């Protein structure tokens, strides 16, 4: 067809047509005038004979149009013109939507990053991850990794997997010695078939050979990650074959993993992968591979063709049960197979709970933003009555007018969506930076097609939501009064609609503000929790000279010299060592036997968490010794029996007695309590007092160094680094940080939730305020006549202010009442996140309601004052 040139010729065609019609009318007029009519009569008669010129012209044009698409184009152009004619209205709506959609996009980007995005593995649908699951337990506690013998058993006897690999879930910090210095890198231990099960091809070199760990020939090898190859090895092709000294042993680089491969599980970054056979040398745990009571491996299987995940799970469960059946005391362990996802199935529940809470919050913000937009569009459509009436009179169909109105709303919402995307582009990195730098976890939150699709869909839905109702309403009316520019009082139906939108906004806003208030107060509470140790003026780091092949006596000498030199540093008042830091992730439990105390029901032993600490640990950490004494160097001598317990353990097992000098059996060894220290927080800030026991720290290779220093922790930390450097440049201090940086981790969840909800609450408040004051201002402008009459009849200004305030505050009151009712139900969801505050906290509820009421009052008072300044004469004359 010939419509393509038409597109360009069309303007000429339309001009021809208009000109032709004009000439036609002219000719007819002249002819009629020749017949004796006056010019005016003739012109009218000609027009009557011709018919509705506008409609005819439009119908003529339609012939040339690529109709639907083109009229949409016209609608869009018209909408743009309309919107740029009232920039104040457009900007308010777009900004409202930008805030609402931006908040949603930001949170969705994280939902996508954690839950929706597939791992960068081809064919992930045929892979399963395998863990063991305690059928009796629930939640994450039920899941347990595999032991190495357990893995081998499943690998060799299953009938549903074509190949079965294993990997260590935790990244291991490893010291890489090069150029006379040490650098900390992270490695992951994997079975030799790990890469082939994943179906990956190396970017360079090759992957591990299947039979490698059986014969153990040749130098141990590693595969390095693409970023490590690029950054640390300069992206040189000769990197393959190069030797790396990792934790004192030499490994040959045999290959580079593909660029896209960032790991199977989110958040873990690996610089290299080493075969499981390297476990004894790399992480110096010689017993790990042979132990069937150490559970540390994730299984990764490739399903045989035609086998489903459930069939694999059933097959593996039979094997897992038979492996445990010889041990009657063991819990019933099933195998659990789940899809390979960035956040594996056992952990998804927590991520889903957390992100859906945030999605709900931003959903409410968007609701308020849409209500704002709806209200503004409604107000404007009333103001545009005349324009719409003119268009109807000229022959525009109702459908066409509704479509035009919806086009306008969609334009607004799409611009809001674009704004929201920009907002998210800026806020997502900001949120990623909230994560303390010291947490060795990296999360990518890419803007992929899912994010764009989400923004588009949500913008579209919002545009329809706030556009349709006012658009339909605006066409249902008599044209005549509007054409005559009669200023009708706003119809009660429409003002009721606008009123209920504002009530809904205030309701939702209150729910959000109360939730935010609760989270902020919970954060304040969490911050003020006494963790039982000092949270400032302490520097901590972890050292592991043993990884460089130090013998026990070398270790002891290293730490002795280190402590000596660090204590001599300016500003350092004390320094000590331990194998544990409170609120850390590791946990050691000991079985103890105390005379006259029975173990808790269902257990055959009393289990107590313990740590090993050197002398001066308590004074350095600021943990008060309440009774007895601190450890002394002699406590590690052979035959010494000293232990120190916390207050909670003392009152638990020796109530009303002096615990000092009491004996009990710790790990089958008779020990004596020499001191009691204050109870602190050990696993989480919100835990109840926990029994805890300290043993004296003997010689160990991997230890925490804790240093009490002056206010300038940064200087002390660089001094400590220098001291370590002079002792041995290959020893890498791992995660050196101040104690306040260290505390960022336990506070992270509370911190993030509190911050986000506070921001969302503030946005909601801003939007609701705009909405309320907009509605009140609008009703002032609509009631200008009425107010003028009232004032002319003797009403004073105060009366007018009260009149307007009454309307606004009534809406606010209803909104707050509904919001309180809804909050009682809604805040229960938060219970698990709150610390030291109940979900229904009367103080928060009351304070937030009063606050919202006050803000609403102010946003009504401004237009009310304006109403009171109306000059009755002017407003009456305008009638």
């Amino acid at each position, binding site marked *: 067809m*010939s419509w393509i040139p*038409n597109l360009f010729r069309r303007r000429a065609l339309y001009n*021809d*047509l208009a*000109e*032709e*019609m004009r*000439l*036609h009318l002219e*000719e*007819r007029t002249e002819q009629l005038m020749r017949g004796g009519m006056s010019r005016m009569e003739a012109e009218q008669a000609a027009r009557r*004979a*011709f*018919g*509705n*010129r506008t409609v*005819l*012209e439009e*119908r*003529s*044009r*339609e*012939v*040339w149009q690529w109709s639907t698409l083109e009229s949409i184009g016209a609608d869009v152009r018209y909408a743009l013109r309309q919107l740029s004619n009232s920039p104040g209205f457009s900007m308010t709506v777009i900004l409202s939507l930008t805030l609402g959609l931006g908040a949603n996009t930001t949170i969705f980007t994280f939902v996508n990053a954690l839950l929706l995005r597939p791992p960068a593995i081809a064919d992930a649908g045929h892979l399963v991850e395998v863990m063991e699951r305690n059928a009796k337990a629930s939640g994450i506690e039920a899941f347990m990794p595999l032991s190495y013998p357990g893995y081998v058993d499943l690998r060799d006897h299953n009938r549903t997997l074509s190949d079965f690999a294993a990997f260590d879930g935790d990244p291991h910090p490893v010291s890489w010695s090069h150029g006379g210095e040490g650098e900390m890198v992270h490695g992951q231990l994997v079975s030799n078939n790990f890469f082939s099960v994943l179906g990956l091809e190396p970017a360079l070199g090759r992957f591990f050979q299947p039979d490698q760990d059986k014969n153990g020939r040749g130098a141990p090898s590693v595969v390095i990650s693409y970023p490590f190859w690029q950054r640390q090895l300069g992206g040189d092709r000769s990197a393959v074959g190069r030797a790396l000294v990792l934790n004192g042993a030499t490994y040959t680089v045999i290959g580079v993993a593909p660029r896209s491969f960032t790991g199977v599980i989110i958040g873990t970054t690996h610089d290299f992968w080493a075969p499981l056979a390297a476990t004894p040398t790399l992480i110096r745990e010689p017993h790990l591979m042979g132990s069937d009571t150490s559970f540390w491996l994730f299984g990764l299987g490739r399903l045989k063709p035609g086998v489903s995940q459930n069939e694999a799970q059933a097959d593996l469960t039979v094997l897992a049960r038979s492996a445990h059946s010889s041990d009657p005391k063991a819990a019933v362990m099933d195998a659990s197979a789940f899809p390979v996802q960035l956040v594996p199935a056992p952990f998804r529940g927590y991520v889903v709970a957390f992100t859906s809470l945030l999605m709900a919050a931003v959903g409410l913000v968007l609701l308020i933003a849409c209500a704002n937009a709806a209200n503004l569009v409604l107000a404007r459509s009333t103001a545009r009555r005349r324009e719409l009436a003119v268009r109807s009179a000229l022959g525009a169909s109702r459908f066409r007018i509704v479509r035009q109105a919806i086009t306008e709303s969609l334009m607004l919402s799409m611009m809001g969506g674009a704004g929201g995307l920009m907002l998210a582009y800026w806020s997502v990195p900001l949120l990623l930076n909230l994560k303390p730098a010291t947490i060795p976890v990296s999360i990518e939150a890419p803007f992929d097609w899912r994010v764009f699709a989400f923004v588009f869909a949500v913008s579209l839905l919002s545009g329809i939501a706030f556009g349709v109702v006012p658009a339909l309403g605006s066409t249902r009316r008599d044209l005549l009064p509007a054409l005559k520019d009669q200023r009708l009082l706003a119809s009660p139906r429409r003002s009721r609609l606008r009123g209920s939108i504002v009530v809904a906004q205030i309701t939702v806003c209150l729910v959000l503000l109360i939730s935010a208030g609760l989270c902020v107060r919970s954060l304040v509470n969490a911050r003020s929790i006494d963790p039982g140790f000092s949270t400032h003026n302490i520097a901590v780091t972890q050292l592991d000279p043993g990884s460089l092949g130090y013998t026990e006596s070398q270790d002891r000498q290293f730490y002795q010299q280190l402590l000596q030199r660090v204590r001599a540093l300016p500003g350092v008042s004390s320094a000590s060592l331990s194998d544990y830091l409170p609120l850390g992730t590791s946990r050691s439990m000991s079985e103890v036997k105390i005379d006259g105390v029975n173990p808790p029901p269902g257990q055959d032993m009393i289990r107590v968490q313990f740590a090993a600490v050197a002398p001066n640990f308590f004074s350095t950490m600021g943990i008060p010794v309440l009774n007895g004494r601190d450890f002394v160097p002699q406590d590690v001598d052979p035959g010494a029996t000293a232990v120190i317990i916390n207050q909670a353990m003392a009152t638990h097992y020796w109530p009303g007695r002096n615990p000092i000098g009491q004996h009990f059996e710790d790990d089958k060894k008779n020990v004596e309590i020499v001191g009691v220290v204050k109870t602190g927080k050990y696993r989480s800030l919100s835990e109840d007092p926990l029994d805890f026991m300290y043993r004296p720290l003997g010689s160990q290779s991997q230890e925490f160094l804790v240093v009490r220093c002056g206010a300038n922790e940064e200087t002390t930390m660089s001094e400590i680094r220098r001291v370590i450097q002079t002792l041995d440049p290959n020893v890498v201090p791992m995660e050196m940080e101040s104690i306040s940086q260290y505390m960022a981790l336990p506070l992270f969840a509370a911190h993030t939730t509190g911050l986000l909800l506070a921001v969302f609450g503030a946005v909601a408040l801003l939007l609701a305020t705009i909405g309320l004051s907009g509605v009140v201002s609008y009703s002032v402008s609509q009631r200008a006549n009425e107010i003028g009459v009232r004032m002319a009849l003797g009403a004073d200004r105060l009366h007018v202010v009260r009149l307007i305030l009454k309307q606004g505050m009534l809406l606010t009151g209803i909104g707050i009442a509904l919001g309180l009712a809804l909050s009682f139900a809604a805040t229960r969801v938060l219970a698990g996140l709150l610390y030291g505050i109940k979900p229904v906290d009367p103080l928060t509820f009351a304070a937030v309601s009063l606050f919202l009421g006050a803000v609403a009052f102010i946003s009504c008072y401004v237009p009310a004052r304006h109403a009171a300044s109306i000059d009755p004469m002017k407003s009456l004359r305008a009638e």
Partner: protein
Amino acid sequence: MTNSNPRDLFPGALEMMILESLRRQPAHGYALVQHIQQRSNNLLQVEEGSLYPALQRLLKARLVKAEWGVSSTNRRVRTYQITPAGMRHLEKEISSFERMLAGIALVLDPDKSTAN
């Protein structure tokens, strides 16, 4: 309302009449209206303007072509001319129209079935 749409009565009738007029001689819009009204003895009260959408349809289908010029009365006019394709189209339309008319006539008045 006198807004009778010719397409409502008989789709294509106006186009056929325009083509028939143009086959006799090229004309501009106003002259076409005059011609159709005169020829039909004013039985067909065509709204003058409704000619133009029909002309646009014919232009688009390349059944007529248009050219700006000056008329014998020295007016600036846009003169339409039938194209060969228009001729063929008209022949086809007329024959199918006549068949239809004959059919209708038969139904309405079977006695005069030999009229054609």
